[in-house]
């Protein structure tokens, strides 16, 4: 466990010392929240209310965890740092924990920072905001697992396209953050409900609204995706490890 923590500490430093990571991971969700709140203040109709928008944007922000994690792993593969580490007595579990553990506090801190910014913009304080951070944990695991999966399978250039563009767009469009997916309906709504992002957002909104009891169905979907993707990610990582 000590060796896994050493690798985890290194990985956290690599991510947090990258100014681009800080801008996109922490800054971009805040910019979005501020921008949409400003738009709302200038239109008479309720489009982007903070109590709906802030919990939703916390989930959108988590998509950047995949990008950070996948970029780090794929770069460690291409720079041969991982190859060097594979010749040391580190065990497979040390790598898995080393690459996933540091992402959890970063993801939860990002959620908390987004919500604090929401409070500054006028979001009503309630202890349920803490619950909102907590229910983002399984959603964080989804994005962290996607990072491990993509980092194990793709090159760093491919990671930029898949995690940076595709995943953030999928999350942005199908999560129901900016609009109700039911309003679009049809195939769009069906895809949104088949993917985990919509359920993660509904869960975060319910946690803030105090209606978590009636949103448990969303929790099971998110947990199922988290478990499935984690298994796939561990398999992909171990596979590329053997291939080396």
């Amino acid at each position, binding site marked *: 466990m000590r060796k896994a923590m*050493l690798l985890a500490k290194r990985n956290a430093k690599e991510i947090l010392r*990258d100014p681009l990571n800080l801008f996109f991971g922490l800054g971009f969700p805040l910019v979005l929240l501020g921008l949409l709140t400003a738009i709302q203040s200038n239109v008479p109709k309720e489009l982007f209310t903070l109590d709906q928008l802030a919990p939703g944007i916390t989930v959108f922000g988590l998509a950047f965890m995949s990008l950070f994690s996948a970029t780090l792993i794929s770069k460690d593969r291409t*720079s041969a740092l991982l190859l060097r580490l594979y010749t040391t007595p580190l065990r497979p579990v040390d790598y898995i924990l080393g690459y996933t553990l540091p992402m959890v506090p970063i993801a939860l801190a990002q959620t908390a920072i987004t919500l604090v910014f929401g409070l500054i913009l006028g979001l009503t304080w309630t202890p349920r905001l803490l619950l909102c951070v907590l229910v983002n944990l399984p959603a964080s695991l989804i994005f962290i697992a996607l990072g491990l999966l993509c980092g194990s399978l793709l090159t760093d250039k491919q990671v930029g396209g898949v995690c940076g563009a595709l995943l953030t767009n999928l999350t942005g469009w199908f999560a129901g953050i900016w609009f109700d997916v039911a309003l679009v309906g049809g195939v769009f709504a069906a895809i949104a409900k088949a993917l985990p992002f919509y359920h993660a957002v509904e869960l975060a909104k319910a946690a803030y609204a105090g209606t978590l009891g009636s949103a448990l169905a969303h929790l099971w979907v998110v947990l199922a995706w988290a478990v499935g993707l984690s298994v796939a990610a561990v398999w992909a990582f171990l596979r590329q490890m053997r291939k080396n």
Partner: protein
Amino acid sequence: MNAIEIKGLTKRYGDLTAVNSLDLTVRQGELFALLGVNGAGKTTTIKMLSCLTRPDGGDALLLGKSVIREAEEVKKLLAVSPQETAVAPKLTVRENLELMAGISGAGKEESKRRIDALSGQLGLEEVLIRPAGKLSGGWQRRLSIAMALILEPKILFLDEPTLGLDVLARSALWEVIRGLKGELTMILTTHYMEEAEELSDRIGVMGAGQLLQVGTAAELKAATGTDTLEKAFIALAKEAAK
């Protein structure tokens, strides 16, 4: 005592036999250079010896430990400085060294002792607090070797350590490698003939997955009737390609 004893080491990838029944012995404290054209089997051999790839046949003993049956034990004896610089770019030089020392099981005090000693030996003091990613190619190579040495290995694999370096940086790194001679066993792969001749005690030339010739640079030249190592290498490589 022999540091490395290779017997019938074989690796196949589908129909391709990358390494074909390799036999080789390397003495303790020896610097052994492995030469070969691309695809000769050098990298696959190094990967098998460093437990990255499992052999399909034969075995190799590193200080008496089998790479097949005792891979975990073998990993405690060796370190690799890969062809790529393989450093953590956002970490400082000191943090890179601390990471590797910690992975080898060293505590805080022991890590500090090793870093102090290595910094002096490799002249890293002036860059200890700089991020590794901001260093020049020469310094990154030096750090790469330091990250291998901090594991306190008995056997060190240097995979093209001076690839892409300018003359001055290469010369400085040669000094570092010369300084390590005798302390530990080193296996060096390189495409630079002068590097092999300058640094190694013996040279092995590989071709088509087999060891074509082993000896000192002088012995290789004599065996091929040539006056330079490069000509000797070309003669052997062409013979293997027939």
